[in-house]
């Protein structure tokens, strides 16, 4: 027995050594391969004569991870990849891991926060500003960009000053370099309205008239899910409470104007505004209904335009969500602004090897030229003073709406705790079905918000 086990031990030891030897060999090989590939690259870099941040002749290989939402079905995916390719062509010693995830999903936030909290920070992170970023900003995981901006006038002056102001955190510093802004609004399929002899929903009476007529004809009037009802809630509350009122938050009790806004959703539901399966579909499916021409309206953001079927996109115009009855909104208040930007992680900033290249990449990705390209792709409002070209009519309508807006507001969910907001989301179905009053639903959310303070 003992002899046998000894033999087993010997065999396992031997195989372990063999395995580890293999591992070592592999490492060695890959290491060689890398340096081999980089050798000509370094030469190329040396030949490269660029004005700014010239790479040292014997540039060390640097690997950067950029985590953003420019992937999957994102309209700007290709433009973004092209920008990255431009950069790596300029600095061949830099390898960029273009890591992406859809922002449509709650798990994007989770992934970012997990990375930030577990020492796995991306070098550059494209993420929301405001409440969403508060955790890792306050924990010092990212560096303020103010000094870097001051030090590089070309970079700073490339920006519209308002865009930079919009991404300032509550502590007064700028952590995120914005790229394009966004607006949200009521996307309307003009063709469906014209075919049914309806007026565009520019005020509440026209809205309800359209909803009634469309739902009688079996067309979904307003596509939107109850669970992922972010945009519905944002617009209902903005329209009910107005630009000032929506900032009141929930910590100090429920603002009755918020109830007015949510009550209007019930009115729409009673008229048959939402898809029959609104309770169980997600945002993607809701957008799909609109994109397929099954729905006449949807509340979405500027980023969604690129995803719609071309025939529907060409018939789309963008309007502000009309003021609900008794609401304090002007009917021209919109949700929008510069809600995202590139963060530079502290870890990268402190890493002498990566620091310069990471900053150079950030500047490259947020140059006026880059901003122009991305906004041409995704229809977002540029953060620099550039004129995007080749935009569709719907995008131009969106810009016009933003230009004529009486106020451009951060979405209400960026001002309250995520759990508070999900509580409101969970209340939407009971509210529209009449199982819960808006007051009760908001009070429930208020309790959660208060417990967070």
């Amino acid at each position, binding site marked *: 027995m003992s002899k046998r086990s000894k033999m087993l031990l010997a065999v396992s030891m031997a195989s372990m050594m063999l395995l580890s030897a293999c591992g070592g060999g592999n490492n060695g090989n890959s290491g060689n391969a890398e340096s081999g590939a980089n050798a000509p690259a370094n030469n190329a870099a040396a030949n490269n004569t660029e004005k700014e941040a010239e790479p040292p002749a014997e540039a060390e290989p640097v690997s950067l991870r950029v985590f953003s939402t420019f992937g999957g079905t994102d309209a700007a995916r290709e433009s973004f990849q092209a920008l990255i390719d431009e950069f790596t062509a300029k600095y061949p010693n830099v390898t960029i891991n273009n890591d992406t995830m859809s922002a449509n999903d709650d798990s994007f936030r989770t992934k970012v926060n997990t990375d930030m909290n577990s020492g796995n920070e991306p070098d550059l992170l494209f993420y929301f500003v405001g409440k969403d970023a508060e955790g890792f900003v306050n*924990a010092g995981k990212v560096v303020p960009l103010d000094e870097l901006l001051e030090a590089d006038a070309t970079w700073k002056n490339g920006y519209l000053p308002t865009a930079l102001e919009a991404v300032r955190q509550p502590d007064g510093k700028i952590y995120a370099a914005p790229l394009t802004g966004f607006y949200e609004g009521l996307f309307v399929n003009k063709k469906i309205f014209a075919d049914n002899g309806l007026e565009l929903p520019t005020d509440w009476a026209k809205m309800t008239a359209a909803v009634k007529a469309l739902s009688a004809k079996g067309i979904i009037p307003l596509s939107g899910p109850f*669970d992922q009802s972010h945009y519905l809630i944002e617009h209902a509350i903005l329209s009910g409470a107005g630009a000032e009122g929506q900032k009141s938050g929930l910590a100090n009790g429920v603002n009755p104007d918020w109830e007015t806004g949510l009550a209007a959703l019930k009115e729409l539901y009673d008229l048959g505004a939402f898809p029959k399966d609104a*309770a169980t579909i997600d945002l993607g499916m809701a957008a799909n209904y609109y994109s397929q021409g099954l729905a006449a309206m949807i509340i979405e953001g500027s980023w969604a335009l690129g995803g719609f079927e071309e025939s529907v996109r060409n018939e789309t115009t963008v309007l502000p969500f009309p003021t609900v009855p008794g609401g304090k909104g002007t009917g021209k208040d919109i949700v929008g602004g510069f809600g995202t930007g590139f963060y530079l992680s502290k870890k990268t900033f402190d890493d002498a090897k990566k620091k310069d290249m990471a900053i150079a990449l950030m500047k490259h990705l947020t140059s006026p030229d880059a901003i122009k390209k991305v906004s041409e792709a995704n229809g977002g409002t540029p953060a620099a003073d550039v004129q995007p070209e080749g935009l569709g009519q719907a995008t131009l309508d969106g810009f016009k709406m933003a230009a004529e807006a009486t106020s451009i507001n951060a979405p209400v969910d960026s001002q309250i705790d995520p759990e508070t907001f999900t509580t409101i989301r969970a209340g939407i179905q009971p509210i529209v079905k009449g199982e819960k009053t808006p007051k009760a639903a908001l009070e429930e959310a208020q309790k959660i918000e208060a417990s967070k303070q």
Partner: protein
Amino acid sequence: MKGDRKYIFMFLLPAALLMSAFVYYPFLKSLYLSFFRTNGFFDKKFVGFENYTRLFTDSQLGAATLHTLEIMLYVIIFQVGIALVLAVMVDNISKGKGFFRTVFFFPIVISGAAISLLFVLIYNYQFGLLNGFLAKLGIEKILWMSETGSLKAIAVPTVWHYVGFYFVLFLTAMSKIPSDFYEAAKLEGITGFKKTIHITIPLILSDIKVVLILAITGTLKVFDFIWILARGQNGTEVLGTYMYKKAMVDLNFGYGSTIAVYIVVFGVVLSLVTNRLLKKEDITY
């Protein structure tokens, strides 16, 4: 025997390390976190039993527990039941056993998420497969994911997905029954249904018990079907999705961990109860 000790230890060590890293440590950490009020990832404060107080007054959690139990009922009756029926039938045929075993086992290799996406397209109200079929027949469309029917609709793919697993377990158990039992029965004139009831099932009772415990604890892990098909809406919230929402969507790890602890306790209690209910002398052959 004494000399074996260190080898026992040595061979158990890798498993023990993995279990500690991926089961015990996370569980203890959850237990620890359940005493904190967390605000996102970076801020936590000790609050004692506050999360547990909330747990016992949370009506959503109560609903999620009931929904989990409802799915469990479907799983026990249909998943285990269909698996047993299929196993008995396949065990009784002489040709093509291998074929049926493969076919019935197949759904398990497909990921739950893929099946869920498939069923999203089957159940969809606007252009789903089922409603498309009804429209062809001129019947009015049905809202499959309705407020009362969603959980049942979701139970269908959930049950279907794992029938094959239990089917294979049953079939293996049946193949272990010595053929002399059946020969003796044949001489006595006992065949068909009677044979199944009086010989096959009593002889695989211990396997049925294992399968039931697996099915019950497995139900506590149901997540993908619910999340993708209904996002926990329309009365489909189960413990798994509720915990995920609280911990990952709301970033309230404290309360999320408390729910996780609750799920573990609930699971242990359920399996103990099952064990007690099924306690019977095992028949050996």
